[in-house]
């Protein structure tokens, strides 16, 4: 067990080390195969280990690697429970499919081996994140995924935009990390340990109360918002689309960005005693969901549509975990991983087939040219739009149901969620229509073609998962909920309504989806509107929030820093230091003439001094 569990993390690590060392020599497609095998191996091991837990016989296991930071009561220790199992399966499962896809997608890239080394690094980091048994190790994974994200976003570093986007992602994440670190300080100051068991048991037993609980939970939210691209720290994710598309699928849709959701779920015991913070999580989530959905409606770049869609869907998950519907949140995390990865990979396939064209206004009519891509993406489209019985329907419906069931002001959030669902259906339909239907609007010389098998097989598998993935947790059979319940013993899980209310809510949300789809089809069915009015521009530029950040923080910060560096530091502080030096010199200049150079003058001075001393002594002697 210990070895097997360790191997889950170690296999990608070994893969990474091999590829860093020999990646160039192994070359193409060997490097991709090595990486894929490593991740797939992890998946298989995880699946085998998970069988015990699935059958309800297995127990929570921990594996201690080595003594790490005893001063914080933490070891390098992995935790194998239901939640981490599920996350591991999602990460390695979706991960291996994307690895496979990447072998085709990255074909011919000069740094093919390096790409897979980074991908394996990411998988390793993500596994550390989800398998960690304490906050410190979680934070390690947390930062390392940030590193892999940085490396992969700016993988094509020759493009200035890619390099800038990678840096932006890392820095914005770091802003969130400050919240996380401060949360860790508070946690350690309260519990004297960063181990999960100590902290969660303590929180459950009432050792954490009042303002402290709220503060910790809110700070954790800041961290989560950074990683999961929530308001107001979402700005890095759209830019992150500069990375290769498989990266967007793996990191910026399926796995890394959901780390925030995972973290909130994992620390549910803390949010349980901090209801205000939990509500804040839900509000942030709902606001982000709606906000990002409106922006997604107006994007012309296919990947940016998906990026804003991801932000919006993450908002959904936040809304769920904020409402204490952890299972619903994790459930949506899983289904979203399937269909959003599929959408991104499909988009990648389209971009690949269109010779790197990303503007949807220059696509159209691709359904016939790329049938596999079209069909699989259509499934994902319907899934994300919440059409039954696809995966997205079940998970989204559960979230909306739970939020509605909480009653009171929560129903406002339900309304926001419903509006978002409508918008989601609208913008996804718009994307599909612009891409696959209508007249071709390609630039000259582009020959759209279906992608190779290596790329379409993962699409098909993910499409299958998007269809059936939702069945693990239907109102008729709450398999996932029962599976995850042991993890959430410490919290009062919120549940979806039952009976007629459930049917009505489901009907309403499906109706919203259909309205959205219908509206989009109506608008885009036979022509492409200009989409350049003031409103569109506002949306297209994301309400100019990114520009505002750039102005205030980047430009303003740089100006301020320049003032400090070149005025205050050089003129002020160093000026004072150098001033002391030149003052000494000037005083020396004044005193110079005293040195006449005549020995006898000096003698006179010496004698004068001696006589002076003598007189002074005598006068003190009582004269």
């Amino acid at each position, binding site marked *: 067990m210990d070895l097997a569990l360790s191997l889950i993390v170690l296999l990608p690590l070994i893969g990474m080390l091999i590829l860093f060392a020999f990646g160039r020599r192994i070359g193409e497609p060997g490097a991709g195969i090595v990486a894929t095998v490593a991740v797939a191996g992890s998946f298989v091991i995880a699946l085998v280990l998970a069988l015990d837990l699935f059958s309800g016989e297995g127990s929570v296991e921990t594996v201690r690697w080595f003594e790490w930071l005893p*001063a914080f009561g933490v070891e390098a220790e992995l935790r194998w429970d239901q939640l981490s199992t599920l996350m591991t399966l999602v990460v390695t499962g979706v991960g291996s499919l994307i690895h496979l896809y990447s072998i085709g997608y990255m074909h011919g890239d000069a740094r093919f081996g390096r790409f897979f080394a980074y991908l394996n690094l990411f998988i390793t980091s993500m596994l550390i994140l989800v398998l960690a048994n304490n906050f410190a190790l979680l934070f390690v994974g947390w930062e390392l995924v940030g590193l892999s994200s940085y490396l992969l976003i700016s993988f094509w570093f020759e493009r200035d935009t890619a*390099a800038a986007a990678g840096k932006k992602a890392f820095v914005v994440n770091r*802003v969130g990390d400050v919240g996380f670190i401060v949360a860790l300080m508070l946690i350690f100051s309260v519990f004297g340990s960063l181990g999960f068991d100590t902290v969660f048991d303590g929180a459950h037993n009432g050792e954490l109360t009042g303002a402290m609980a709220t503060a910790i939970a809110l700070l954790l939210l800041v961290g989560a918002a950074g990683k999961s691209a929530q308001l107001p720290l979402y700005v890095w994710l759209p830019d992150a689309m500069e990375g290769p598309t498989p990266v967007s699928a793996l990191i910026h849709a399926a796995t890394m960005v959901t780390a925030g959701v995972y973290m909130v779920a994992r620390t549910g015991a803390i949010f349980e005693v901090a209801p205000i913070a939990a509500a804040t999580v839900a509000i942030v989530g709902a606001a982000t969901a709606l906000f990002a959905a409106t922006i997604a409606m107006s994007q012309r770049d296919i990947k940016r549509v998906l990026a804003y869609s991801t932000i919006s869907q993450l908002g959904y998950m936040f809304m769920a975990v904020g409402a204490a519907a952890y299972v619903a949140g994790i459930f949506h995390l899983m289904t979203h991983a399937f269909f959003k990865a599929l959408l991104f990979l499909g988009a990648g396939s389209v971009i690949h087939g269109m010779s790197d064209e990303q503007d949807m206004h220059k696509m159209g009519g691709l359904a016939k040219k790329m049938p596999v891509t079209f069909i699989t993406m259509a499934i994902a489209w319907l899934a994300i739009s919440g059409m039954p019985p696809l995966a997205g329907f079940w998970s989204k419906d559960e979230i909306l149901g739970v939020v509605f069931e909480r009653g009171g002001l929560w129903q406002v959030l339900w309304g926001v969620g419903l509006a978002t669902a409508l918008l989601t259906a609208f913008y996804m339909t718009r994307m599909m229509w612009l891409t696959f239907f209508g007249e071709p609007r390609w630039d000259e010389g582009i020959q759209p073609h279906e992608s190779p098998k290596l790329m379409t097989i993962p699409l098909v598998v993910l499409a299958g998962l998007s269809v059936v993935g939702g069945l693990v947790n239907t109102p008729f059979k709450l398999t996932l909920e029962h599976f995850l319940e042991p993890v959430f013993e410490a919290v009062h899980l919120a549940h979806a309504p039952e009976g007629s209310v459930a049917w009505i809510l489901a009907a309403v949300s499906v109706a919203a989806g259909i309205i959205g789809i219908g509206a989009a089809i109506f608008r885009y069915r036979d022509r492409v509107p200009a989409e350049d009015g003031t409103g569109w521009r506002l949306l297209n530029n994301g309400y100019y929030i990114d520009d505002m950040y750039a102005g205030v923080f980047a430009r303003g910060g740089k100006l301020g820093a320049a003032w400090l560096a070149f005025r205050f530091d050089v003129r002020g502080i160093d000026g004072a230091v150098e001033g002391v030096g030149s003052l000494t010199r000037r005083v020396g200049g004044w005193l110079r003439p005293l040195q006449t150079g005549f020995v006898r003058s000096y003698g006179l001075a010496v004698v004068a001094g001696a006589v002076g001393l003598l007189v002074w002594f005598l006068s003190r002697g009582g004269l």
Partner: protein
Amino acid sequence: MDFPILSALIALPVAGGLGVLLVRRDELALPLSITSSLVTLGGAVWLLFEFESGEAGFQFVEKSTWHEPWGVGWHLGVDGISLLLVVLTAFLFPIALLASTSVTHRVRQYMASMLFLQAGITGVFLALDLLVFFIFWEAMLVPMYFIIGIWGDERRIHAAVKFFLYTAFGSALMFAGILSLGFLVSDQLGGPTFDFVELLGADLTRTAQFWLFGAFGLSFAIKVPIFPFHTWLPDAHVEAPTAGSVILAGVLLKLGAYGLLRFNLTLFPEASVDLVPVLAVLAVIGILYGAIVAIVQTDIKRLVAYSSVSHLGFVVLGVFALTTQGLQGGVIQMVNHGLTTGLLFLLVGMIYERRHTREISEFGGLASVMPLFAGAFLFTAFASIGLPGLNGFVGEFFVLIGSYLSLPGYAVAAAFGVVLAAVYLLWAYQRMFTGEITVEANRGLGDLNLREKVIIVPMAVLIVFLGVYPKPALDIIEPSVDAVLERIEEKTDYVVPEFGSTTDIAVEVGE
């Protein structure tokens, strides 16, 4: 008595330096001095393994009296605080020497200066007699002055003089402090003494502690350097040759923090506790200010120099947090900063040897022509940013969490330093290494050669090792810093805050 290993660690570089001077052949200077420093490194590693890591007190003590009436003597010893720094010193010197192949002018004198410098620094870490400490402290200035002033860049004289005068100014105060301390205790201890261990037995009045803390502290603060005494550092770094910068950042700066920890906290506990707010404020200002100023630097060496100001701020904050984790973090951060910043300067030196410029705008897109070099730079930058798995993380993590309970507001403010570190280093990386190649001269640059790989690899290995498995180092440090804290608790009414005791946020807001 056992073999005097500590004296040997000081004597070996001196012998090596003299040897280099006496063998009047320039081509032998490098091999000779590297051999000498490698032997020293061997001794230091032996010391590392022979050291009993569970003990708090001084080990390998050597003591012999020179002048009884004044209580002066050759007294050396090593404990958990100094051991790692001694080993770091021994480790960095062979590497710095290896990075000095571009020195072609007065080679023997250069190598000898470096070796004398090593002896001086090692002596400072090992000395347990204040006068001996002071002698090494001053002795170390001289070779450093020459290294900057003779083998430096264009404005080397200005930088060297500034460095020398600034530090000598602090030293003068410290010397006065040492003398007055030594004679102040003569009533209590039956005669003046400069022996550190004996001095610990004396009780000083609050006023005396305050003044002496100031005298020692100012000297150390200049060395660290604590804001606002930092302006000599960028000048010295920019003008110093590569090896000089490496040693300056790698170990010389640690001397200040080491002095604060070793002498100020233990000899003047009451004053230390009283002055915590002052130093904490300066430390936090240093962290943020150094980082902000680093962002907009146009000279990569200046950038790294200001990043040192920021990193050393963490050290000072950790030391004056007066908690186990904080102090441990402070010490380990010193070691980590020595490795990462040392390596950064080495890398900057490598690119400087190729292009003879330090202006960031002269580069751009280097990753395409020098992928290995870019990788090494990025690796080091991330270590410096404090990425987990690399060493920088451990120190920052300990310092931040360790200082939270005693200095909550400061710790929170300091946490923002981690964002800024990412900003200045990644932006610098972006400007230097990514994008298209903009300057034609960069197109033909060669990637790392064997010598440079030999320089980078050992440091990188240590960076990863300390990042992944810091426990051996922490085990060495812990007993000694605990002893310091115990002494403070015993001498003052300060109580080291217990972690895990707060339940309310009021503590955080109220303090």
